[in-house]
């Protein structure tokens, strides 16, 4: 490739990136513009439930040191939600991964486990939230609800991963003299890791939805879901939107982190 060609491809790349950035900006700016116009219109009708972006922004600044409804700073709400999320998520992984591996490897484990998992899987976590709160209390109820939501995507992806192991890889390992245990640790486990990562990605999305909604029921020590709910019930909508935006940002952050992780792992495992 000579110099002018190099310059040309560089310019092409710059142009493509430029177009992408411009369109992203247009998309976000029009979103905020529509929001703004809509709130001006609704406020003119004396409907107060959609505050303008600038009002939400000043509420956000205030809420950093404590909002008027709960009195807690936004960060402590976020940390409270994050804390429940991480616990529920971690326990779900610890339980779901071994069961997934077992159910993937043994058809008897599948015969034994599937009737139960297939019955429970279609039940949305929130339908069971009331039960979890009653059974585990307000402290652990939200954690168990998250656990339930994350459990199934992880379990099913791990199980699917084990069952997808290319039989020729098993043959290759056997002809190389691998024992049953070595086939598990050196073939089945590494093969399953990208599938586990997909399960984690899906589980993260589910986990966030579940935690906010679970905190509507009760959230001692605060939580973003609690903030949204309490602001709603007293009709202070600007602070309610602060909570909503906090959740959106956290959601975007966690999904991009897990996607990045999923990609990196897949790359490292030579799958991509």
């Amino acid at each position, binding site marked *: 490739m000579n110099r002018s060609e190099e310059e040309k491809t560089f310019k092409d790349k710059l142009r493509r990136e430029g177009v992408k950035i411009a369109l992203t900006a247009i998309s976000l700016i029009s979103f905020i513009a529509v929001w703004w116009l809509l709130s001006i219109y609704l406020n003119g009708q004396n409907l107060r439930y959609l505050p303008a972006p600038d009002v939400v922004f000043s509420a956000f600044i205030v809420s950093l040191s404590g909002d008027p409804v709960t009195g807690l700073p936004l960060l402590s709400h976020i940390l409270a939600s994050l804390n429940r999320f991480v616990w529920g998520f971690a326990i779900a992984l610890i339980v779901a991964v071994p069961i997934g591996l077992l159910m993937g490897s043994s058809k008897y484990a599948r015969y034994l486990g599937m009737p139960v998992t297939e019955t429970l899987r279609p039940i949305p976590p929130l339908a069971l939230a009331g039960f979890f709160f009653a059974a585990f209390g307000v402290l652990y109820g939200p954690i168990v609800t998250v656990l339930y939501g994350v459990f199934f995507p992880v379990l099913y992806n791990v199980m699917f991963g084990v069952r997808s192991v*290319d039989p*020729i*890889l098993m*043959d*290759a*390992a*056997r*002809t*190389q*003299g*691998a*024992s049953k245990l*070595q086939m598990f640790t*050196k*073939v089945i486990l*590494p*093969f399953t*890791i990208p599938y586990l990562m997909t399960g984690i990605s899906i589980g993260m999305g589910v986990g966030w939805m579940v935690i906010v909604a679970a905190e509507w029921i009760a959230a001692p020590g605060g939580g973003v879901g609690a903030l949204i709910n309490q602001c709603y019930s007293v009709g202070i909508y600007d602070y309610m939107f602060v909570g909503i935006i906090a959740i959106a940002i956290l959601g975007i952050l966690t999904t991009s982190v897990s996607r990045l992780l999923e990609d990196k792992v897949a790359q*490292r*495992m*030579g*799958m*991509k």
Partner: protein
Amino acid sequence: MSILSFKNVGKVFSKNGEELVAIHDFDLEVDEGEFVCILGPSGCGKTTLLRMVAGLESISQGSIELNGKAITGPGSDRGMVFQDFGLFPWRNVMKNVEFGLEVKNIPTAKRVEIAQRYVELVGLKGFERSHPKELSGGMKQRVGIARALANDPAVLLMDEPFGALDAQTRNQMQTELLRIWKETKKTVLFVTHSVDEAVFLADRIVVMTARPGSIKDLWDIDLPRPRDRASSKFIALRKEILDELEVQKTGT
């Protein structure tokens, strides 16, 4: 000296209560260092036969003995090369070749030394850190061969190893394989459905009958190596064997 002997080997598959005889009365002695090609129509059980030697398939009748010991299961004394390579995608070239040594708990330094030797033998120096995804079909099969050889097996079992490659790469790999065979002096059992490939490679060709597979004919190929595909002897031999295969296809 015979190293591998098939004694009245038979294979019966049972499916839904029905019995299907895949291989029947297969008798063969393979000499140490010999290059034997097993040739036959598809479905004749040649791959099954190889998998039985590898220990991946049970033996229904008779026995297969390696160095006088009956084969009962898989083991690293037989190296297998697969048509679809069967490389571990998450391992790089070195780590793929090291697999069997790792399984045997050979210390890292020794393992790396052995693997490096075989990686170089198959001509992959410089690609040690590449992952299978980054390699061409021919290079993937070079890794497959190195991995099989790294265990220093008594026999090398090859199941249509070049079947997934384009014609040009295929010819190139055949020449490469002969070089590797010469350097390692391994006994090779090579399954193919290509007469051309068999005549180019083999010391001896075993032509199998259609199902149930057994030996139809044995051909000693005493053409000097390197063999010239365009020579009249090569062409004549290829035609003769091809005709024999054709006869059994049409059944006349």
